[in-house]
């Protein structure tokens, strides 16, 4: 079917500067959570669905961000990949870098990115019967998608961490990398 418009592939990729209101996103996200609730029987499954939704986005996001960054070099070191998530990906999603990036004290293969006031959690107060639902599972899915398609497979989960002196807990994205990633990383020359 020939139309006057350019084929999708031939159209230039936009600069990524157009915006929609946060409200539109919140309502759509709300609806996604509500729909997922009808398809699952417990909180764990609900979080997994949110995570899967995020995962498919993360896969696509890596390609687009790397193209936009004009970054022709692929990240091969773990720390560089983490920095990519902490700054570029976060800036794309939330408009700023994440607050903290740290390695876990408990295990070598675990790293954490923390932030507060993520817009997925901003408007949610979870009723008692929903236990520990954390809508940042969506963000965890995006991170997992980005890391996976960059070649750093990991298990990524989102947790609430109460902060003393603040009314709302901060959200921590916990990344537990596969053993293969660490082996490969230690074999690389450092520097």
């Amino acid at each position: 079917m020939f139309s006057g418009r350019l084929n999708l592939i031939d159209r230039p990729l936009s600069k990524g500067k157009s915006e929609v209101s946060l409200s539109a996103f919140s309502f759509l996200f709300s609806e996604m959570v509500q729909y997922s609730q009808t398809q699952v029987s417990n909180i764990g499954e609900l979080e997994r669905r949110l995570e899967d939704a995020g995962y498919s986005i993360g896969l696509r996001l890596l390609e687009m961000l790397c193209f936009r960054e004009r970054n022709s070099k692929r990240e091969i070191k773990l720390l560089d990949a983490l920095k990519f998530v902490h700054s570029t990906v976060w800036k794309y999603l939330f408009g700023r870098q994440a607050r903290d990036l740290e390695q876990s004290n408990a295990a070598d293969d675990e790293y954490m990115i923390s932030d507060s006031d993520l817009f997925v959690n901003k408007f949610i107060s979870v009723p008692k019967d929903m236990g520990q639902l954390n809508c940042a599972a969506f963000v965890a899915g995006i991170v997992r998608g980005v890391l996976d398609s960059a070649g750093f497979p990991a298990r990524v989960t989102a947790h609430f961490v109460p902060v003393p002196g603040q009314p709302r807990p901060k959200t921590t994205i916990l990344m537990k990398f596969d053993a293969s990633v660490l082996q490969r990383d230690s074999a690389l020359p450092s520097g």
Partner: protein
Amino acid sequence: METINSEIFTLMYGSIVRQLITDLEDITEVNKQLDTMGYNIGVRLIDEFLAKSRTAACTDFRDSTEKVAKVGFRMFLNTTANVTNWNPEGTECSLVLEDNPLTDFVELPEGCSKLKYCNVLCGVIRGALEMVNVQVECDFAKDTLRGDELNEIRLKLISEGTEAYPFKDDD
């Protein structure tokens, strides 16, 4: 007004449609579910629209559609629509969208030509208007994803209600 990058919005919507197709398989069901989801969103969205735009009342159906097209679309999707093609009685019109953030990067694959990808927008308009007692029927007449030049939503006024006392006068 707080905004976010429209691509995240587009990608998330795409993810939702993908999930629906996987769950439901039948395209007619997916279209229906998108409309229902849009309706649920519209029912909530109306309050934010009313509060932020400080709209007190619309004088008639024409006024309502203008508000939806100019104020509503701008407020939420950062795009505008034009209201055209009125029928002589003034009960049917078309909303023509030039830019649609939901369909950036999207192409419908072969097996999904019946998919009304943006059906959620029809549901939103229907739900929002119902909360101000205006019943409409809303459908896509032209869809860029299916080869047309632009996106056109056809709005048909069914009825305009009035406030009624909801409880029976029994006590």
